[in-house]
């Protein structure tokens, strides 16, 4: 049994199931595909999405107004994007939610389908509400909790992103920008 598995792996490793003449070109093609994949990882700053760094959220320009309004809010002292926008009750749910939301954003951005004013989806709104309560639980102890259909943000709707919200809300705000691909200096690139 083990022998059969080993020989199968060996055959896969050497592409032995292909006619001998196809093997080298196939290795080359696989190399090209892997190189393109690696390139995608590099130019899309993929590893940054595993972090909690808010700068990962402005790898593309769409979220710049949301970054800059947060950066000028009191919440910047206490909470980053992920603190409010992904769940924190379990590691699995955190990354599952992040992956789902991130893939949706990537798909919409690629298709140029972004609306001019971004709103929280119902799932996202529920997570935001969870996270308001997660930190502000002690303040809530003394008031009646939000009732049906009401969330913290129903009234506190300018927290933390301001009153006028759209992709064009703060077009010239100074936010960190991505450095050019081939000359990445240490530290932030100034806009």
């Amino acid at each position: 049994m083990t022998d059969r598995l080993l020989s199968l792996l060996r055959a896969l490793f050497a592409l032995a199931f292909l006619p001998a003449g196809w093997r080298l070109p196939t290795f080359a093609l696989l190399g090209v595909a892997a190189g393109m994949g690696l390139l995608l990882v590099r130019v899309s700053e993929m590893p940054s999405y595993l972090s909690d760094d808010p700068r990962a959220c402005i790898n593309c320009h769409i979220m710049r107004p949301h970054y800059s309004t947060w950066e000028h809010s009191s919440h910047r002292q206490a909470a980053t994007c992920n603190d409010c926008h992904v769940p924190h009750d379990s590691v699995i749910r955190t990354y599952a939610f992040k992956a789902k939301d991130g893939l949706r954003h990537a798909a919409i951005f690629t298709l140029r389908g972004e609306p001019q004013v971004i709103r929280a989806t119902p799932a996202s709104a529920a997570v935001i509400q969870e996270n308001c309560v997660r930190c502000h639980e002690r303040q809530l102890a003394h008031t009646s909790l939000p009732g049906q259909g009401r969330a913290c943000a129903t009234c506190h709707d300018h927290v933390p992103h301001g009153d006028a919200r759209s992709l064009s809300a703060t077009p010239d705000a100074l936010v960190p920008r991505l450095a050019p691909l081939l000359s990445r200096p240490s530290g932030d690139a100034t806009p």
Partner: protein
Amino acid sequence: MTTTDHAEQTPRRPRPWVGWAVFALALCATFVLGLLAASVLERRRESAALLPAAPVADLEGDSAKWGESFPRQYESWRRTAEDGPRTKHGGPGHYDHLAADPRLKALFAGYPFEVEYNDERGHMHALEDVRGTARMDPARGGKPQPGTCLTCKSSDVPGLMAEMGVAEFYKATFGEVSAKVSHPIGCADCHDPQTMNLRITRPALREAFASMGKDINTASHQEMRTLVCAQCHAEYYFAKKNPSEEKGTYLTFPWKRGTTADAMETYYTRDVPHTDWTHPVSGAAMVKMQHPDYEAYRSGVHAYRDVSCADCHMPYRSEGGVKFTDHHIQSPLKNINAACGTCHRWSEAEIRARVETIQDTTRELLDRAEDALVAAHNEVGAAAKAGVTAAQLAESRDLLRRAQLRWDYIAAGNGMGFHAPQESARVLASAIDLAQQARVSVAKARK
């Protein structure tokens, strides 16, 4: 391809290390070349961003020339040619008001609006539609009009006014001016070609501000985002420049006392007694209101909060990280996300429902006003036929004139009351009241 020869020579036992070396080489080559290509594309964008703007001559009427340097604005402006699906109470397209509401034929009897009253289309169609309207075509029951009627229809007008002189422009016939213009409303109507700043190109608005004792040159940029629209989306009449003229042609806004319906009514009664036509049934001396959009907007909450026309009708857009003003001027109901959503955090469905509630309410009040006005015209007409004297009917005719002016202040405007919901309801309430007073007055006169 030599793969088949190669296959025969390859020993039976595969040598995977060679294969993996090829793999690694291909991977590295692709990655490095790809990085290089991506970087080249990145740097090419830098040079595109630095392209100098093509200079545009002052008063250039052809928007395509401006569009060379401002493609996003130009392309979105061209979309005003679209006749989309209508909104519940408006929206683009040739909607026939007379067919939809036969009372309008009775209210505008004896006036070109009884011949044709279509909803306006987008700016791109302005010139084409004014040339094609039956209202100015004697063959179809219309009346010939002066060149003044082209003042707001073409971006060639500022240049033509500079060439001809303003008063001469207004005095020319429609045909004379029409032969000299070829572009619909466009860039030159609102922009300075050197700085792209907004500027007032139509003298009527400048003069109207002066008549109110205001200096339009002190307007802020945010105010200009409304005032460039107010150059045309305003009530006007053709004034006589000197009393010897038989017919007035000088474009004038009746704003000396203010921009409310009441202020205009007083203006047309006391300051410049003005009558557009005499109603053939009732004999009342009527005034036609012409799209007082800016005036109605001024009474609304959005104006109170300094929200400009452009904020809702031309909201900012971002495409590819570039912010620009969407020049596809249209009903905000066609673009709720950007037009309303920037400030109002409800769902699009809730926003639409709120707007339509306001518009439905206004429509109901318009209906009541129209019913009362038609009845009043008919009753005054019947009384005149029955031999009631003009002196006895003077009061009811005056009430009718005032009532219809107020109804038309809302009816002729865009927005179906949304620009100023409460003021629209107040004006229509007074229109209904005055029309019913006219009916009471004529009933008393017949006793």
